[in-house]
């Protein structure tokens, strides 16, 4: 297969959640639904739809958008954790997502054993992870706790060990979700240094963030997403400006409606800023 000129090639990607098949599904519920023969369409929530973009080697893309826009779902899809329901994703090179901040630990075994276990889950070769173990432990800096069950760790220690494992290998394609400020001041400084290292070594980067400044700083292109679709694509400054403008307009519109309603003597409505598919953590 010839090497693709693109690190990531996403064509007409769609990912949907079956709203009637969430974690609390029981056979009884499904049967009732099947017997009821409801419309098929309202079963699905499209978290992403008709997403098409390409990222060339050497590029760094920022993804902006309000809560519920589908940014995290997109990262999960690029990481291969969610499979496309429509369209395709082609990724050339080793992908690593820094989503792994400690929630996947096995509580009853030690930190050291967890390094081996999670390394094996990530598909890193045994010899590689064995050689990296010392540096992972050093970076996590949790002292003698490394040989105690993870159950005994503080959440900060878990996060540090998780970060240390997730960043131990420099990926070709780096997927970053913004939640990277973990631990104390000292650790945060070190972790930011390490991310900068990974960023310089990666051949392509996808950064999801609410921090508009970091988009301008790190990225050469930005996408604005809303309700599972790409609204705008362009240079970071342009996209950020587009986004700011949109937020301003939306606020103005809401204020107007509010004023109109107040004038008419109606009570203020309860509004939710964005929403998420059921069963998904923020």
């Amino acid at each position, binding site marked *: 297969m010839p090497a693709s000129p693109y690190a990531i090639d996403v064509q007409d990607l769609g990912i949907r*959640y*079956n709203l009637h*098949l*969430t*974690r*609390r*599904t*029981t*056979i*009884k519920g*499904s049967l009732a639904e099947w017997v009821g023969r409801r419309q098929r369409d309202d079963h699905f929530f499209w978290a992403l739809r008709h997403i098409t973009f390409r990222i060339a080697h050497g590029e760094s893309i920022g993804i902006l958008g309000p809560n519920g826009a589908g940014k995290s779902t997109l990262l*999960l899809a690029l*990481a*291969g*954790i*969610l*499979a496309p329901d429509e369209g395709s994703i082609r990724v050339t090179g080793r992908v690593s*997502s820094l*989503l*792994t901040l400690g*929630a*996947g630990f*096995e509580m*009853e*075994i030690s930190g050291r*054993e967890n390094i*081996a*276990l*999670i390394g*094996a*889950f*990530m*598909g890193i070769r*045994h010899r590689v992870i064995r050689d990296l173990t010392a540096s992972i432990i050093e970076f996590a800096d949790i002292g003698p706790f490394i040989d105690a*069950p993870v159950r005994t760790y503080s959440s900060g220690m878990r996060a540090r060990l998780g970060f240390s494992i997730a960043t131990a290998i420099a990926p070709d394609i780096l997927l970053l979700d913004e939640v990277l400020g973990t631990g104390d001041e000292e650790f945060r400084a070190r972790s930011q240094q390490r991310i900068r290292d990974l960023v310089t070594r990666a051949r392509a980067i996808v950064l999801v963030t609410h921090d508009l400044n970091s988009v301008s700083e790190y990225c050469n292109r930005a996408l604005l997403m809303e309700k599972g679709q790409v609204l705008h694509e362009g240079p970071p400054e342009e996209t950020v400006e587009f986004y700011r403008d949109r937020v301003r307009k939306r606020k103005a519109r809401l204020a107007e409606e509010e004023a109109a309603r107040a004038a008419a003597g109606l009570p203020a409505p309860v509004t939710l800023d964005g929403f998420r598919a059921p*069963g998904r953590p923020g």
Partner: protein
Amino acid sequence: MRLGLVRLVMRGVLDLRTRGRLLQYLVGTDLKRTHADTVMGQVWWLIDPFFSMAIYAILVTVVFAKQIPDAPLFLFAAILPWQWFQTSLVDATTSVTARGNLIRQIQFPKIVLPAASSIAGTITFGFGLFSLAVLYLVYPGRLSPWLLMIPVIAAVQYVFTLALGILFAGVNTFYRDVQNLLRHVTRIWFYASPAIYSVTALKGSVFGLVLALNPFTYLLTSYRNVAYYGMAPDWVGLLSVLLVSLVLLAFSIWVFKRIETGFAKIL
């Protein structure tokens, strides 16, 4: 993208073969977890089956003493492999749902999870065999070279357990009813298997058909043949169970691989 049945099954088998190290770590974790924080730690692997054997032994010498000679051995030879089946199946069924966090964060072949559960169960069974060995100190006359066939019978049982475990693990991810239902089904299944009675006791009755269709009739009879009667296992029965299990295993892997991509969405 839909792959054909054969290719999907082959991919599942490949998943297991290429992830040997992961399987090894998972099995180790499973075994450690069962007795974490106990003073005697791994010694419990030997003590647990020994105690359950002792309880059965006392119970049956009091209750069945007259009907069945050497009743403790008669029972334990069948109850030990049954317990292996039951715990492995329950563990495998919940193995995917128990790792929801990880599945949402790392992409890996999920089929290793039920496979690891069934391997861990097998190791526990291996330790259980030591307490079976202890029983022969009491009944040395029951020792026979046919005992060496236990690994062969166990291998057939393992294929059957693995097949059901993979299937249930996959379906349970979407329908949690499976794990609840399983508790009751295994209990009924136990009484529908010749564990605390012998097949001959029920030949010809209506219940005979149930026994004839139950793989554990052939498995438990074979264990009892080698461990208690000192005779050959039920070769024909074992071979039939093996063939059915292999077909079931292929089907289970196929189902699992088909629905695996949806796990991350609902966990």
